[in-house]
C-alpha cells in the first residue's frame, strides 16, 4: 500500500538528466527553451539536475558519436530505477542526417532501451513537453528491476548495419 502511495509521486517530481551525445546543439537549445519562462517545465516539477544518481528521466540528444557512447552507457547504468529514456531529435532516434557516417552510431537505441522517441530537427518545445509527459506515464508503470544497456547484454538485432526498428517498436 505504501508502494502504491509512493508510486503516485513519480509523476509529480521527475528530475531530468540531459546528455548531449554529439548533438549539433539545436535540440539542446530547444530543451533550454522548455525550461525558460514561456514553456516553464518546472511547473510540472521537472528539474534539470545534471546528476545521474538523482535523475529519473534520461533525455538524450545527438546521434551518439563513437566518443560519447561509453559515457552514454555509463550514465544510463548510474541512474537508479525506475528510469525512462527519451530520445530527443531525429539524430537520436535514427541517426538523422548523420546516419551511416563513419563516426556515428545511428541513434541511441543501439546501446540503451528507449521509451519515448521525439522526432524533429530540432523538435519544437511543445513536442519535447509532449514527449516528456508521455515518458511520465511510462515512468509510473515501470518496476524497480534493474535495467541493462543492450550492447552489454548482446540483445541487439542488426539489419544491414542498422537496427531493426520494426521489431523494436513492437516490443516497446
Amino acid at each position: 500500500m505504501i508502494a502504491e502511495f509512493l508510486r503516485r509521486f513519480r509523476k509529480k517530481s521527475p528530475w531530468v538528466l540531459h546528455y548531449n551525445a554529439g548533438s549539433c546543439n539545436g535540440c539542446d537549445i530547444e530543451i533550454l527553451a522548455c525550461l525558460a519562462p514561456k514553456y516553464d517545465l518546472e511547473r510540472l516539477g521537472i528539474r534539470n539536475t545534471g546528476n545521474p544518481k538523482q535523475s529519473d528521466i534520461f533525455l538524450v540528444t545527438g546521434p551518439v558519436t563513437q566518443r560519447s557512447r561509453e559515457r552514454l552507457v555509463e550514465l544510463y547504468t548510474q541512474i537508479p530505477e525506475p528510469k525512462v529514456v527519451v530520445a530527443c531529435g531525429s539524430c537520436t532516434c535514427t541517426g538523422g542526417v548523420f546516419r551511416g557516417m563513419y563516426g556515428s552510431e545511428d541513434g541511441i537505441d543501439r546501446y540503451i532501451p528507449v521509451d519515448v522517441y521525439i522526432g524533429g530537427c530540432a523538435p519544437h518545445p511543445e513536442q519535447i513537453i509532449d514527449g516528456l509527459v508521455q515518458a511520465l506515464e511510462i515512468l509510473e508503470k515501470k518496476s524497480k528491476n534493474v535495467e541493462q544497456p543492450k550492447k552489454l547484454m548482446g540483445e541487439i538485432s542488426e539489419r544491414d548495419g542498422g537496427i531493426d526498428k520494426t521489431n523494436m517498436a513492437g516490443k516497446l
Partner: protein
Amino acid sequence: MSWILTLMAPILGGLLYGIERKLKARMQSRQGPPLLQPFYDLFKLSDKRPMMIHSFHAAMGIVHFAAAWVALAVLFFGGDLLVAIFFHLLSAALLIVAGYSARSAYSRIGSTRELIAIAALEPVLILSAIGFYLHSGSFEVSAILNAPPSLLPSILGFAALLIALPGLLKKSPFDAAEGHQEIVGGAEIEFSGRFYEAVYTAKWLDMIFVFTLVFLFGGNNLLLGITLAVSAFLTVVFADNATARVRYTDMVRILYSVAFVLAAANLIVGVVL
C-alpha cells in the same frame, strides 16, 4: 511550543523551500512548481531503487541531517547560541567527511570548497553571536529574546550576517561549493534515492536555522523579528536570481574583507558604547 516547533521543523522547512522555489520562479516570470513540490520530491526519492556508495557515506548523510536538526532544537529550546552554531558547523563538517569518503572528483572538489567556505563563514557567525552577548549579556537564546531589539545597536553585525546569508544557504553569488552547472552539487553528488533525502531535508533545516538567527535581531519585539526574517528571505531570493556565482577565492576575499570586517567593527562599537 519548543517541542512542536522542533518536531515540525522539517515540514516548516519544506514549506519554506516550496515558497522559495515558487517565489524564485515568479521573479523570473515563470509559473513555478507547486507549493508542496519539495514533499513530492521527497516521496519520489524514497521510491527509487537504493544505490549506496558505501555505508559510511550514507551514514554521514544521515548524521549530517541529525546534527542540523539538533542545532535547530538548541535554538528553539532557548539554549546556548554558541552550542547551536557548533552543531551547525558539525553538520557541515559531516557532509564534508562524506564528500571526501567517496572516490569521486566532483565530490572532493565540492568538499574542499565547502571547507574553504566554512573557514570564511563561521567566524562571521561566531562574531555575530558575540554581538548578541554584548547586547543582552548572555549567549542564551531565551535571554536574547527577552532583551530589547539589538537591530539598531548592532546594525553592522546584521549587515555582516546579511552578506554571509547566501553563503550559509549555498545560494548565488556564494554557491561555489555547490556549483550546480559546474560541479553538479559538490559534496552531495554521490547521494541517491533515499540516502539523498537526508541531505535534501538538511538543506531545509539549514534555511530555518539561518532565518531564526536573523529573527533573533528582533529581540523581544516579535513583529520586528518576523519582519527582519521575511525581508532577509526576500533579499536572499532576489540576490540568488540577480547575481552570478563568484569564484571561491573571491568568495573568501569578499566575506573576509566585508562581512568579517563589519562583524568585527560591530563588536568594537558594542564595547565602546
